[in-house]
């Protein structure tokens, strides 16, 4: 069942010559209980799109149906009620700095008129759920970035929403903290059944938790589908730019090139994969593009490798790569 349905959504800022078309003819169907990713480079319109889902931005035209309600048709008051069902977390956490964590989590319940004692009890449960029960009396300034985001998540869950919108929620966090926040979101998705919409510019975030993804490029929907399909068969330039490291295009290589996209998901030690391929198998692969980094001695990132022409060598190389711990590999389609 779809929980968010967006049809022919347009958003234009300004009028006349200076008008900026932030979103053009966006169509989306997000299913209840899934983790849906929206990815795009900065300026692609993803923050505007997510704000159209709770009407923080009013679409210029088009339809936004959330949990069966046409959001654009609601009055101010009805909209405020509907927003309790579609809550949001942010890149900069946006906690109230003059309130304790407990009071921050109580905030949405105060607004909706939950009695104080009941709100406090629920807030403590939520802090427990995000693993921060001991920080109830602390102020946000005393917390790390990851802890702040956990409080923000607890706060966003206070009104038992059906949808949690995450606007670049991990972009201000280091990779280890990002991983723990993503794990928490996945956990909450499974435990509470809350639908999660993740806005990000990082492919790794999509890869980590999303089941389906939409790619926004310059305000238009370039592609959408299952994450594994888009990763293995990106059919648009926008998708390839995001999926392939360094934005390489396979078209620049001779017809018949077989390529594999290798993702390093934080192996315990950085392995010189290419060298060991050559040494162990005697197979040489060509690095078409790479974007890897080592964090705390662990390898993260992606590489695009051109496989040898010999089908046997190619198959051997592929299975060798796949056998590595914490490495995933998908052969990617060549588009003639």
């Amino acid at each position, binding site marked *: 069942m779809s929980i968010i349905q967006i049809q022919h959504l347009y958003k234009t800022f300004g009028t006349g010559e200076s008008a900026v078309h932030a979103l053009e003819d966006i169509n989306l169907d997000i299913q209840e209980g899934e983790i849906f990713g929206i990815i795009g480079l900065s300026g692609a319109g993803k923050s505007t799109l997510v704000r159209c889902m*709770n009407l923080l931005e009013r679409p210029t035209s088009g339809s936004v149906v959330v949990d069966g309600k046409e959001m654009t048709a609601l009055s101010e008051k009805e909209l405020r009620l509907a927003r309790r069902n579609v809550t949001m977390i*942010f890149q900069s956490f946006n906690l109230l700095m003059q309130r304790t964590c407990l009071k921050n989590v109580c905030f949405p319940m105060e607004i909706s008129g939950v009695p104080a004692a009941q709100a406090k009890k629920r807030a403590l449960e939520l802090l427990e759920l995000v693993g921060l029960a001991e920080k109830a009396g602390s102020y946000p*300034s005393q917390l790390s970035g990851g802890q702040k985001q956990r409080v923000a998540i607890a706060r966003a869950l206070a009104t038992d929403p059906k949808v949690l919108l995450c606007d670049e929620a991990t972009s201000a966090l280091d990779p280890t903290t990002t991983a723990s926040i993503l794990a928490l979101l996945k956990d909450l998705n499974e435990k509470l059944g809350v639908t999660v919409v993740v806005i990000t510019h990082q492919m790794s975030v999509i890869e980590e938790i999303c089941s389906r993804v939409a790619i926004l490029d310059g305000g238009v929907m370039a592609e959408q589908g299952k994450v594994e399909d888009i990763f293995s068969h990106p059919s648009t330039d926008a998708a390839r730019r995001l999926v392939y490291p360094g934005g390489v295009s396979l078209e620049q290589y001779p017809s018949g090139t077989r390529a594999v996209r290798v993702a390093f998901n934080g192996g315990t030690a950085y392995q010189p994969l290419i060298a060991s391929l050559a040494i162990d198998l005697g197979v040489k692969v060509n690095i078409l593009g790479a974007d890897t980094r080592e964090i705390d001695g662990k390898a993260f990132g992606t590489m695009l490798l051109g496989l040898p022409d010999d089908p046997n060598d190619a198959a051997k190389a592929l299975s060798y790569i796949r056998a590595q711990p914490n490495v995933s590999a998908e052969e990617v389609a060549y588009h003639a």
Partner: protein
Amino acid sequence: MLETIGAFWAEYGDVLIEGSWETLIMVTISTVLSYVIGVPLGVALIVTQPQGIRPHRGICGVLGWIVNIGRSLPFAILLVALMPFTRALVGTAIGVKGAIPPLVISAAPFVARMVETSLSEVDAGVVEAAQSMGASPLQIVRKVYLPEAMPSLVLGGAISVVTILAYTAIAGMVGAGGLGDIAIQYGHNRGVTSLMWVTVVFLIIFVQIIQWVFNWWSKRIDKRLDQTADTRKFAPLEMLAHFVHTK
């Protein structure tokens, strides 16, 4: 030296104490009333601005004009121009009572701008977060803008109080009472320059104390700061108590 001070105090001590008391009364009442008017004005300016939570070009424009006009009128002129109004309102245009209406009318627009500035420092993201949770504009004002801006509002309060204190000295020119009045009546009209300088010293001490107390208060309530060390230790009241005890 001590004898001179003793003689001086014997002659003018009562005048100074009464003047200080009058100044205190004028400043306190005027500040409270200025905030009663200025806070809603400042809030309205923030809420109705184009990026505000309830944008309204008309209201924002008109309020902006009113505040600017109030801010442009020199206090000395306002003081004289308002005399008939003051008389009609409180029955007299002189003394502490007569000084308060012009003080409030002059300070309220100033306070409105101070409040507006403090509120504009509140992180737009936090306001957006409150909106995303379904908070109404009134709830956002009460639960986000005002509490989040409180340390800044308090610091602004020091500036407002000191400004009003300076206005009371000007009001002394038309017999408002208070330290300014003493400086003019004794220092200027009767040529007792020593007394004039003493009132100046009193005013300097007042300003120092006001700034000190408000700075401490702002730090004390600001949860963005580390509350463990300095702010408690340098509490003005505790320091004052310490001072009294050692004496």
